[in-house]
């Protein structure tokens, strides 16, 4: 039961980056492998505001997430926009390079030493025979709230509907009067916020170190592919499944090998249900 709960926490942490991956893939049709490094940079920014300037973590995280949202718009303008016409493979390779650069910016600034946010130590407590700590509860609350806000945005607000419309059929979106550049900017901004919050949650769960985000990339992509790339609900479900199965796998295999779980999930999904659990079959338009 405790392992299952730990898996839920691991999955919940992955929901936000998985949603960022699936949102961006839906609108821009390329896998952004810089998500891990983007989370790392946002987490270090929150660390700088929280541990170095003494801001409360909640405020520091909010500012870091907003800053990452704005930074993502700038990154898109400088890195991805000029390459947009060259196809998904070029954009994917660019994202790999960008991830390398961002991770090393964090490394140059803070070194390889593991750091942690300035949080008061709190004693873990028991609930229904489960041992949990304050950070895990914060993680569940924040991730759930973020997912609800994302659901509201995507289903209730015009910009959310426009993002889904562009993801569904970009050419039709144009002739329905939807300005793609505006939708793309919003998508990057929201992606940045999700990655910013996700980075802080990872930093709270583990420690802050340069590869902290990259360590999650395979699991995050596994979650997004399992749920169905482009499906927000799928990203949520995929993250929880990958998280729980990864943790449960440690009961039968050495913990070092649990990274294989998302890879196996990706392989199984691509063979038997390429569109994932909640994705739509791909139709070339």
């Amino acid at each position: 039961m405790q392992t299952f709960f730990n898996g839920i926490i691991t999955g919940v942490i992955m929901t936000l980056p998985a949603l960022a991956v699936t949102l961006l893939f839906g609108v821009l049709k390329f896998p952004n492998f810089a998500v891990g490094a983007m989370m790392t940079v946002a987490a270090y920014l929150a660390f700088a505001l929280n541990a170095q300037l003494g801001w409360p973590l909640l405020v520091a995280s909010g500012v870091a997430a907003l800053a990452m949202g704005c930074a993502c718009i700038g990154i898109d303008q400088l890195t991805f926009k000029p390459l947009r016409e060259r196809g998904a493979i070029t954009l994917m390779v660019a994202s790999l390079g960008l991830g390398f650069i961002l991770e090393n910016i964090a490394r140059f600034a803070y070194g390889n030493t593991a750091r942690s946010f300035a949080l008061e130590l709190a004693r873990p407590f028991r609930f229904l025979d489960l041992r949990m700590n304050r950070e895990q509860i914060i993680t569940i609350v924040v991730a759930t709230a973020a997912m609800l806000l994302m659901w509201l945005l995507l289903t209730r607000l015009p910009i959310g509907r426009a993002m889904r419309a562009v993801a569904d059929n970009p050419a039709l979106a144009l002739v329905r009067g939807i300005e793609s550049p505006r939708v793309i900017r919003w998508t990057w901004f929201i992606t940045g916020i999700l990655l910013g919050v996700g980075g802080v949650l990872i930093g709270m769960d583990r420690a802050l170190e340069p590869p902290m985000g990259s360590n999650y990339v395979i699991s995050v992509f596994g979650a997004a592919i399992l749920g169905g790339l482009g499906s927000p609900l799928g990203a949520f479900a995929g993250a929880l499944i990958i998280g729980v199965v990864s943790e449960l796998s440690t009961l039968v295999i050495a913990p070092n090998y649990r990274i294989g779980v998302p890879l196996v999930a990706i392989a199984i999904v691509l063979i038997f249900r390429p569109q994932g659990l909640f994705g739509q079959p791909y139709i070339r338009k």
Partner: protein
Amino acid sequence: MSAVLEVAGLHAGYGAGDILKGIDVALEKGRIVTMIGPNGSGKSTFIKTLAGLLPARQGTMKLDGERLNDLSPPKRVRAGVSYVPQEYNVFRNLTVLENLKIAREFMAEKRGNGSAIDAELIELFPELPAHFGKKAGNLSGGQRQMLAFACALAVRPKVLMLDEPSAGLSPLLMVAVFDKVKKVNAMGVSILMVEQNAREALRISDTCIVLAGGRVRSCAPADAVLGMKDLNRLYLGADVL
């Protein structure tokens, strides 16, 4: 009667070659114009170029005197050009209501009143409200075509361009579609239609333009073209009429 849409010397195409080789067309206000021609004659290319999905290499396109050439597709929609593609003409993963809302939402700044759906649209498409909560991808072919129609009309266009609106529909649904086209036209919307079911389309049209080899071969009153015996052989290359 004045022209709402004027096209002069239009060249456009894919890759190196031009598919449209100097098209001159004028669509008069409140008229239905049907464009016919053999496969590959450039009918769909013409409509896509007007919608802004393909750039014009030469020539001018004007809507009510406003030059369209330099406008992006969304700006052309705001100017008053609405386009219903032949396939994939609704957002499959959005509900019917969301499809209608999105069609109107981005028009609020210039045309339309900003509200999602108006009574006029529902009166024209009374079958749609029953499906508001359904994903558009789950609709039948005829229902999808009606939704696409409604979405294109939600932006209150001056010119509605339809690419093969009856493609893949049963004869009964085809009649229903052309009936809607007439009703839409009666609301004052000028219509430019590309259609393979030429006989049915010409019955409701005012003017027929015959396109072949990327050029306008004929522009005549629709009823006169309907009466021509050898039009199939001359322009369509098949027994379409």
